[in-house]
């Protein structure tokens, strides 16, 4: 047992006035926060090389206010649109959006698919907890069919998105998915996403024990992590499985990594030509 408390190796990245988070005990978002900071540090980058943008929801509180860097905390669903303007104004800065599944695929769905289509260079981390946590457990576009939530008291009558498939279909040049059970793999993938010259999307399933864990009966944060572990299957393995076998599984890994013309670069070329 130690009598002194050592400073966490990532403490220098945390805003001095925001050392504690408002997250529920056991929330997966803190695991992802560490993963992001480790990825940035591991690449030899500084937090000041980035501008972070987030929307509304628990996930949006990952960079806001904790990350000690430029952070824009936007209106619900819109971080990607705000981030587009930031990237246009500061093309040399790395722009990272961190927001939730409700924020990015419900109210923000339109901005998500268009940014992917445009292939604008930014990293978008979509934190998927399958529910609207901050507002008390309403159904989300990712909530499983049949689940009872506070706005689907008779069971969710809708099919959920496979967000990674959606973003892949929209034309993103990098798409990956992990869960908070896989922080080391997640960190490696986030590094790749940051370095990608194009729209890089990482979906991270993160446990919300208070809302999702309770509603589904999966349980507390530890039980949810064990559930992620049991349900996950890597892409390599999944490719050898039948659709029925995959129905209730979470396929994880890097799904898309291609090169396409990137928006900001294309605009810069247009500008250079026009100014000549």
């Amino acid at each position: 047992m130690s009598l002194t408390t050592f400073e966490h190796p990532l403490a220098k990245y945390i805003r001095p006035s925001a050392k504690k988070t408002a997250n529920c005990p056991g929330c997966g978002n803190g695991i992802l926060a560490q993963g992001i900071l480790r990825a940035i540090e591991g690449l030899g980058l500084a937090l000041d090389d980035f501008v972070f943008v987030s929307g509304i929801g628990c996930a949006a509180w990952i960079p806001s206010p904790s990350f000690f860097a430029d952070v824009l905390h936007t209106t619900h669903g819109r971080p990607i649109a705000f981030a587009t303007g930031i990237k246009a104004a500061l093309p040399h800065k790395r722009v990272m959006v961190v927001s939730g599944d409700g924020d990015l695929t419900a109210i923000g769905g339109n901005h998500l698919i268009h940014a992917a289509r445009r292939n604008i260079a930014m990293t978008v981390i979509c934190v998927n907890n399958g529910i609207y946590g901050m507002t008390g457990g309403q159904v989300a576009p990712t909530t499983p069919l049949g689940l009872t939530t506070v706005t689907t008291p008779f069971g969710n009558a809708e099919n959920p998105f496979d967000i990674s498939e959606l973003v892949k279909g929209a034309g993103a040049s990098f798409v990956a998915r992990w869960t908070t059970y896989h922080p080391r793999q997640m960190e490696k993938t986030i590094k790749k996403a940051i370095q990608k010259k194009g729209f890089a999307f990482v979906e991270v399933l993160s446990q919300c024990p208070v809302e999702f864990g309770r509603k589904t009966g999966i349980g507390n944060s530890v039980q949810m992590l064990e559930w992620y572990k049991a349900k996950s299957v890597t892409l390599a393995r999944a490719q050898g499985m039948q659709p029925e076998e995959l129905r209730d599984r979470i396929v994880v890994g890097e799904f898309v990594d291609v090169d396409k013309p990137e928006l900001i670069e294309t605009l810069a070329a247009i500008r250079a030509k026009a100014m000549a």
Partner: protein
Amino acid sequence: MGKQVIISINDNLCKGADGCGICLALCPKDVFKVAERLTARGIRPPVVEKITACTTCENCVIYCPDMAIVVRLDEMPEAAAAVKGPAE
């Protein structure tokens, strides 16, 4: 000779084993146990029970959602970066 492992738990950042408990569950060597008494904030943090079992896998560090655990190898207690706490 043998390296010394020091595990530091910030009781001020920790949200308690009852609500969280991830470090306890994800430690492959059962290094932690739950504190018997509540802290002044009303939570029961993990405490190190079997330091010699620690392999510095750092699962506890990486999986802690509150960045409350630090694992150091071969550090002396009077290291410059040591932060006394929980005084905040």
